[in-house]
């Protein structure tokens, strides 16, 4: 595959940004500085970045409750994101959404979503609008293994297939729906099998390998842009934190399983590839990591210094 060097470097930087962003969130949560809850994306970076590296800001993505990584991958700014997570006025949603509703419609990011499966029909609607307007834009719907037990998912996939809409259903199968392991919440092992019921391609890919994700999803995107309809790509991946919060999830996941998946961490893996292929030198990679660290540090400082909304803001934006 011929991915220009600049793109590869950007992909690496985006993955590192997500990881460091989430580690920053974890630290803020440990310090009890983040109100409410947050679902961390660390471990799944190869999926979000692999997919979004193929999209422009005219393309749409519908995200999940685990949405920080998707927004960063789509070009989101950590400053506005941290500010939102801390409930501050300059946050992406002026402090009214928080982690579970972070969104940037200007980037085509239709929102994290606190309701499992709800993003699927919304992505179908965005794809419908893209075709209606005669644009070649596509919509990517991110969802987890758990969401494929929701009626909304099946209704959306059926409608997208029926109308041959430019949607790519990207399953981030991290083996758990909340705390319930996949074999205890559905009888299929591969979510991709569900595509067959809707007469669309269902492809499985190693979700810890960004190049594999990019290649497979790239074919699905091309198919969608050609007008040949939707696909389902199942990315086998793993979350490094617990379902919610900063724990490691060891109460519900076997130690060997966690160790096995952590050994497949997508970031060192891609880093090694970039160095082996002489795309980056060790020093350049370290430089990127340092640059990201500085950016994250600055973003956290910005957010912590940012003002809270005031009660005057309570009733604004209920209606247009």
């Amino acid at each position, binding site marked *: 595959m011929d991915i220009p060097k600049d793109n590869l470097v950007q992909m690496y930087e985006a993955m590192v940004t997500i990881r460091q962003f989430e580690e920053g969130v974890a630290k803020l949560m440990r310090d009890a500085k983040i109100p409410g809850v947050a679902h961390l994306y660390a471990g799944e970076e190869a999926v979000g970045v692999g997919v979004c590296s193929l999209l422009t800001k005219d393309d749409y993505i*519908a995200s999940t409750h685990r949405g920080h990584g998707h927004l960063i991958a789509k070009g989101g700014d950590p400053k506005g994101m941290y500010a939102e997570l801390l409930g501050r006025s300059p946050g992406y*949603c002026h402090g009214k959404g928080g982690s579970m509703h972070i969104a940037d419609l200007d980037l085509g990011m*239709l929102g994290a979503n606190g309701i499992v499966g709800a993003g699927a*029909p*919304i992505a179908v609607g*965005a794809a*419908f609008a893209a075709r209606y307007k005669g644009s070649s834009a596509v919509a990517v719907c991110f969802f987890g293994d758990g969401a494929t037990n929701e009626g*909304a998912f099946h209704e959306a996939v059926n*409608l997208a297939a029926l109308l041959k809409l430019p949607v790519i259903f990207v399953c981030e199968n991290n083996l758990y729906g909340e705390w319930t392991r996949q074999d205890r919440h559905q009888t299929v092992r591969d979510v991709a099998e569900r595509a067959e019921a809707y007469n669309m391609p269902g492809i499985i890919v190693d979700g810890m390998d960004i190049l594999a994700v990019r290649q497979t999803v790239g074919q699905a995107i091309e198919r969608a842009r050609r007008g040949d309809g939707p696909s389902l790509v199942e990315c086998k991946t793993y979350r490094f934190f617990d379902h919610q919060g900063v724990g490691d999830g060891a109460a519900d996941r076997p130690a060997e399983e966690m160790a096995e998946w952590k050994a497949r961490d997508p970031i060192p893996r891609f880093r090694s590839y970039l160095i082996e292929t002489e795309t980056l030198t060790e020093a350049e990679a370290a430089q990127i990591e340092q640059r990201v660290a500085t950016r994250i540090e600055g973003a956290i400082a910005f957010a912590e210094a940012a003002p809270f909304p005031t009660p005057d803001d309570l009733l604004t*934006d209920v209606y247009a």
Partner: protein
Amino acid sequence: MRQTIYMMAINEALTQEMERDPTVFIAGEDVGQHPAFGITLGLRAKFGPERVVDTPISETAILGLAVGAAAAGLRPVAEIMFMDFLGVCLDQIINQMAKMRYMFGGKARLPIVVRAACGGGYRLAAQHSQSLEALLCHIPGLKVVMPATPYDAKGLLISSIRDDNPVIFLEHKKCYTMPGEVPEEPYEVPLGVAEVRRPGSDVTIVATSYMVHEALRAADQLAQQGIEAEVIDPRTVSPLDMDTILASVRKTHRVVVVHEAVKFCGIGGEIAAQIAEDAFSSLEAAPVRVGAPFCPVPFSPPLEDAYLPNAQKIVDAVLPMTPAKV
């Protein structure tokens, strides 16, 4: 003025808005091929299947399609055949379309109309006859519209389509074939403005949707007994034009609120409470609500007839609170 029936007024509003604005499209079950109530008849032939989209029986997908398309710049009119079916897809209403603008800090604009048929009287039993507007009025971010006349059906639908917020547009089945004066040209009836259907001085009757007609019949009966009722049709139940209602109550000092939905926790309770809060000193009798009893809509004709509010029940509510006229 030209006369037409309520359902044709809705068809005309859809036609004219689709002609005016290419971003307006319709999606729903059988809206193109075989419209269930005939409301969208002829629209697919005129605008094509890309703009009049027949969907599977998938209410969540229909509303999700509307939410995503609206977020991406279109102006969808989604049809949920019977409002009872909102039970299948409430998430897209309660958690998605109603909240996205607020949750996203004002950055989303969701100009969506969800049309649905409401109300009983056709022996369709418990899952095809409900009036669930109170459920929707309880959700900030939604507007809820209940036209009672052909004129309002057209003008309110045009306003709803042009509105930048999600609007639930509830059409009463008993109104579909009612005739009335309807201008041929497009016009707007503003959302959130009540209409005084009949002026009166002795008692205010606030009635919604089809109950407006029952209230007017009740007012005629009361007039024969010397009681002049003022009948107010809020037209939109959210936003609710309390100013018009309060002004009337301050004049008549008595009020009966009527809706077809069950009385318990209905919109009538909200209206009565606001009157008690804001016009207590004007009242010469406690506000009274007329609504359906607390049970599902029954099937058997004598049971459904007993269930539904009507002119006689309104008269029976008004008489005890009004002083006898000589």
